[in-house]
């Protein structure tokens, strides 16, 4: 699947969960931040914006990777904002016990230094518990105001979960970016 196909799939999925939202609106939905959290650097992201993605669109990753998932420098966190779930009893792919994932998440493009390829990363919030407040990583390249939520980290993103109390955030690899369309 190339990037454009994936974007279209993601937007179609978001339309289903964004009650009352037009397709145009859904395309502007964005990742979030909680109190004190700032934006995200999109290393190797180019012109590709952060986009909303329905959680079930995520796929298992089986790629070579090195690095410490409890460090903000970990390659998957290039567009991260919030507390790392890997420091809160979960991992970069699993919410801590007792929390729940939001049904809408956000995608950045990060370059994996191990194989040199660009991957789409879905940043899913884990919600329904108090703020973990450990391993806070805040970056903001490409961040935009809330009226352009597809690139805004100033919004609380726990949509679709039972509670919008923010706990921590995952970083799921959901696909490889087609080099022919990479921004």
């Amino acid at each position, binding site marked *: 699947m190339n990037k454009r196909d994936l974007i279209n799939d993601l937007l179609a999925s978001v339309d289903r969960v964004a009650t009352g939202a037009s397709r145009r609106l859904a395309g502007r939905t964005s990742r979030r931040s909680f109190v004190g959290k700032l934006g995200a650097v999109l290393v190797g992201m180019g012109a590709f914006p952060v986009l909303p993605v329905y959680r079930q669109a995520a796929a298992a990753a089986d790629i070579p990777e090195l690095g410490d998932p409890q460090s903000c420098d970990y390659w998957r966190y290039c567009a991260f904002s919030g507390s790392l779930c890997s420091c809160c009893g979960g991992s970069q792919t699993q919410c801590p016990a007792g929390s729940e994932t939001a049904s809408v998440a956000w995608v950045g493009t990060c370059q994996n230094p191990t194989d040199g390829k660009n991957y789409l990363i879905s940043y899913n919030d884990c919600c329904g518990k108090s703020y973990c407040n450990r391993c806070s990583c805040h970056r903001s390249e490409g961040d*935009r105001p809330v*009226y352009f939520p597809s690139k805004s980290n100033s919004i609380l993103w726990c949509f679709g979960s039972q509670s919008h109390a923010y706990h921590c955030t995952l970083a799921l690899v959901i696909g490889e970016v087609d080099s022919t369309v990479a921004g």
Partner: protein
Amino acid sequence: MIQRLVSGLIAILCCLSLSAQEWDSVVGAVGSIDEPTPHWFTLRGYNITYLVNGDTAEVEGTLTLSMFSPALRPQIDKDRIYSYGSFYTRTYYGERTDVVLIFDSNTLAPIAEVEIPAKSAGLGHGGMIGLIDDKFLGIWNITPAMSVSIVDVDAEEFVGEVSTPGCAAVYPIDRGFLMPCGDGTLQYISLDRNGKESGRIRSRVFFNVDEDPIFDYAVPTTNGWMFMSFDGLVFEASVANGEITISEPWSIISQDEEDAQWRISGGQPFAYNAATGVLVTLMHEGGGQETFEDPGTQVWGFDTNTRRRGYRMELGEEMATGVALTADAEPLLIIVPDEQRTLRIASATTGRILRTMDEMGGGLVQNLLPAE
């Protein structure tokens, strides 16, 4: 034995209170606050808001809010302060209820609430809630569909919800409100006497969200609202004769080579006082647009009549996340530290520090009284 001691102590205290009136009551007392002046402001903390007298640098009282209550909307002439929040039956989980909170501005006690759709934005700034024509509150929602909940504050009733795709915040003008939109325009939605939408118009496209977006934060002017772009362009917006007028922009960044390295930033990055024409901006050196939320290291003060900078205030080691101005003709400048440190209160016209307050910081500053 202990019971006897306690009984004896209570008896002694009772006797003392009867015989010596200068002793405090053993159960304490509950006060109310003084009449606010234009130099009073509020500072948002965690789940609480402080009411501060800027002339004395004293906390005069507090309001307890939810952890999803970004801002207040005072209506002091009606002895009320409004906010909104989300509440769960088990604090962080359980059944969610969103309400407009109504406080008595004298006792600071909650006196009423109005349930609204459980869609309100849990983070943000003063633009998340607006008092429209002294009659309606508008509360910005994101689910992620964007809309505004309208509440009649006199009837204490939820009126309805206005869909506002692609546009955020509530900046009231007359019986309606402006919203910045992702397509580079402002939208104005007018309400009828019952709080229902009676029309909506768009401005011309005046910014590009990819090249130089405006902050979603705006401050009131005499006739409308002032917006600022990430690169420091100042726009004033007003509504008249069914049209939204956007002024030609001017830049707070001069052609000076050294100035060109500076950027406006912060959670509350600029403030304007219409009575004096003073504009203050929070600035930091270096970086690109991605630093628009970074703390600032200087405050710049401008005279908007001449569009010239009057002062640069160096903040030293304690950086700031926000600046605010009181709305009167002798305005105070409030500088909010980026952590729970020292809040500074200065003269807005000279930049001279007048007072400081320790253990205050981090949150949104709002005026209790509007401009005259």
